[in-house]
Structure formats: C-alpha cells, structure tokens
C-alpha cells in the first residue's frame, strides 16, 4: 500500500494505491491516472527559461508541451542552456520540436517584444 498526494489540481487529494494499482481517496478520474503513472513511470511538465536576444527582457519563459519522464528532467535542464530564442516571441512558439526525443516540444509561454 502506497500513500500519495495528488498534484493534478490544487485540491490535493490524499490517495492510497495497493500493489495492484487500485487507487482510492481520489475525487476524480485524473487522480487515479496520476497515481498509476506516478507509481509506474512518473512524469512532469518542466517550466524554465532560455536565453533571449533582442527582447525587452533577457530571458524567455518556456515549458514542455507535455509531461516528460521525471528522470529526464535534469537532462532537459542541461539542454536548455544551449537553446536561444530571438525576440519577438509569442505564446505557443515552438523553439525545439520533440526535445531530447521525449515526444514533447519546447514552447514559449510569454509574449516578448523587440527592445
């Protein structure tokens, strides 16, 4: 029996999962899905920034378009050091497709105009 707190939404359900991955304590199906994923192959959406040239700010915030395996988060952070964006950037711009072959794209999350 494993106990875990759901991070899907701010409600933060306190859940229990047995060895056969039967989940209880979740108030919605997304909680059960999260618990199963967390106990078999945990994933996270990663948000960070990359270098931005020519913009009103020096950093451009980004996110992975989908959750990536938790054990690839450190690799991703290292890879971001080599990514550079140029202003102007728009919400949803794809900077890197299928980053580190995770299936997720690296996308811009803020509008930044040219300086």
């Amino acid at each position: 029996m494993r106990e875990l707190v759901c991070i899907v939404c701010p409600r933060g359900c306190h859940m229990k999962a047995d060895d056969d991955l039967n989940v209880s304590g979740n108030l919605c199906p997304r909680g059960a899905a999260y618990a199963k994923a967390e106990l078999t192959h945990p994933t996270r959406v990663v948000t960070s920034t990359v270098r931005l040239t020519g913009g009103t700010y020096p950093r451009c915030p980004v996110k992975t378009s989908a959750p990536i395996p938790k054990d690839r988060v450190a690799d991703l952070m290292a890879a971001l050091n080599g990514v550079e964006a140029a202003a102007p950037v728009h919400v949803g711009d794809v900077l890197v497709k299928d980053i580190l072959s995770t299936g997720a794209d690296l996308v811009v999350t803020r509008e930044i105009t040219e300086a």
Partner: protein
Amino acid sequence: MYDLIVVGGGPAGLAAAVSAWDSGLRSILIVERDRELGGILNQCIHNGFGLTYFKEELTGPEYAHRFVELLGKTGVEVRTDTMVLDVTPDRKVHMTGPATGYRIEEARSVILAMGCRERTRGAIGTPGTRPAGVLTAGAAQRYVNVEGFMPGRRVVILGSGDIGLIMARRMTLEGARVLACVEVMPYSGGLTRNIVQCLEDFGIPLYLSHTVTDIRGDRRVEQVVVSRVDERRRPIPGTEMVFDCDTLLLSVGLIPETELNTRAGIELDPRTKGAVVYENMETSLPGVFTCGNVTHVHDLVDFVTQESQRAGAAAAKYVLGGAAAGEAIPLENGDAVSYTVPQRVRPGNVEKAVDVFFRVNRICGRSEIVVTAGERRLAAFKRDRLAPGEMEHITLPKALITGVTGAVTVSVKEAG
C-alpha cells in the same frame, strides 16, 4: 469622465475590466504602474494556473495572456507605466507617468485591484547581521525568471508559503542546493501539491515548528541558524541547527497593498488587511469596489478571476442602475474561522446566492461548516479536511439570508 477606472492591470484588474465591458460599460480605463499588463503572473513561469477557470493547466504568463487577448477585443483603454497616487471619495483618480505627466481623471466608479506585497525581514524581526543574500522569495523569482540572475548557490528558505515552495524547486532546477525549508507553524501555509512536487520531488527537508534564530555573515550570508519552537512559537534553546549557506529566501506572508484605501478613508478589516466589502465587492465608499489580493490574499488566481468578474459586473450595475440599497447583515467568524469575505451582505442586493470565502485558523479534519443567525442554524456544509493554506468557500442562497436580523456567523465544527 470615465464610467470606470481600474487601478492595477494584474489578473484582478484585467478580469474586472473585461467583465465591466461585457456588462455594458463603454468608457473604462486601466492604470498599471508596470510597463506591461499581467502583474505578478509574468514572473510565475511555473504551471498549474487555470485548472478551475480554463479547465487546463497554464503557466502564469499564459494565464495573463488569455486575459490580455480578451481585453484586446474590448475598447478598454490602458495606461501602463503610470502610478495612481490618490483616489478621492468623490472618485477623482490622481495619477502620474512619463507619457502623460500628472493627471486627475474622474470616474463614475472605481475598482481597486492593486494586489499585495511580500512581508520582509523587517516585518518578522529575524535576528542576526545584515548581510547581502537575504531576500524575499518573490524578489528571487523575479531575478531568476525575468532578469536571468541566480541570487545564490546554497539556499535556506524561511516560510512554506507557495512562492517559497515554488522557488525551492526553481532554484534546485537551476543548479542551486536548497538545504531546508523552515516553517514556524506546525503545518505548511502552502498547497499540499506544492509540498509534494517542489520539496519531496527533490528531497528537500521541511522543518515544521522551526524558525531562523540567527543570520551570520559580514558582507554575504555565511550561516543560518535554525531552532525548534514550542507551541507558543518561542525558540527552544539547545535545538539549534547550523546551515552553511549564502542565501536566505523569505516566504513569510503577503499583505494587501492598501495605501490608496487608507488615503481614501476606506474601512479596512484588520483580519484580511484589505477593505471591508459587501456582497458585490463594494467597499465602504459607494461606487468604489475592490477585488483580488488587495482585498484578501488568495491561493489561486482562478478565484481572483471569479471575484474580479463579480466586482466588474457590480461596478457596471452601479453606474447603469444606481447604488445598491437595503440593510446589511454583518458576517462574523465563529470557531476556527479567521475571516470571511464579504464581511457584510445586503440580502436585497443578492441576485440568487452569495459566495462566502474564508480561511480556517488551524487544520481541521472531517468537519461541518455551520452557518447560524443567533441560535438558529441556517445551513451546514460537510468537508473532509480544512487547512489554513487553502481558502474555503460556501454558497448561501438568497432565500436563506432574507429576513435575517442581526449577524450571521460562520464557524467550523470538527467531528468527534
């Protein structure tokens, strides 16, 4: 003369302005002191925003962008880089900025949406020397996410509010070592999900019932001393732990930024530190409304949006339909409840129901939220768990409060 001037272009001001436009007002001005709209959301690059309102997981800048786009479809006028200095009781708004100079604009209604600021080291009286490297979690967030500076390499975080937890993860991802998160209360002030995904994911210890009792260092922080506290929050001698670090981040609470309220003579609530409000988010000054973190500090922007939409619609109703009338019932907090918003309800001005937001002052297990008028029990709501870090809300139908005389009390009774 504007129909409405909104002070502040963060999530509260944006939602209020769009809602007032949708409710029929056509001459609306937003005044924002920053260079662009969006407020603090622009530096909150993590995700988790919008799950309630948009039913999807957005980052802070994305959430702000949604509302800036909505605003773009309206005729709302925006003045950025402009600071409001005064709002008078007859709704003259004094402002200054490089583009326009000093200006006085008149408005039929005003919405105060200035947000909140962080408590600092001075506010909590932490002892020790005064070296560089002690900063609020929000300041560190701005440095890292917007300016691209790392404020330190070995970090202790005092306070377990959400910004502190978020920064524990952020600093770790950027290569810093976060040694500890220290919380004086026996429970965290942050959301449970943030404890899990920001501390536990990275093996960062959370010390509950502990506080910082010394900061050491000459030019730069060199050590931070952490001690256990007793149930009266006094440090216990002999429990000191010394952390070698160069940075101390403070996440020790947020305070509504109410200087304009005070200057305008608006009644404040010492519990929320924001304005006392009626059911429609109107302050003690008729025609002046307030919403978002300047009214009471929220955990989730989604609720700021909803509250601000109500304020925007109410301002429109005031301008187009006249002042709200009727006797007001005071809402009082009973056992385990630390405040309610609104603090006063005019049943005659409630359309169908009134949403009441509140926080508990301790962790409660399986409980009943009980609403009473004198000895009479009006309603009860069941909850599995309530925590001070998570704002609660109940909905009181108009029929329930109509005809009530005297105060209505909201209290929490734990089962067993």
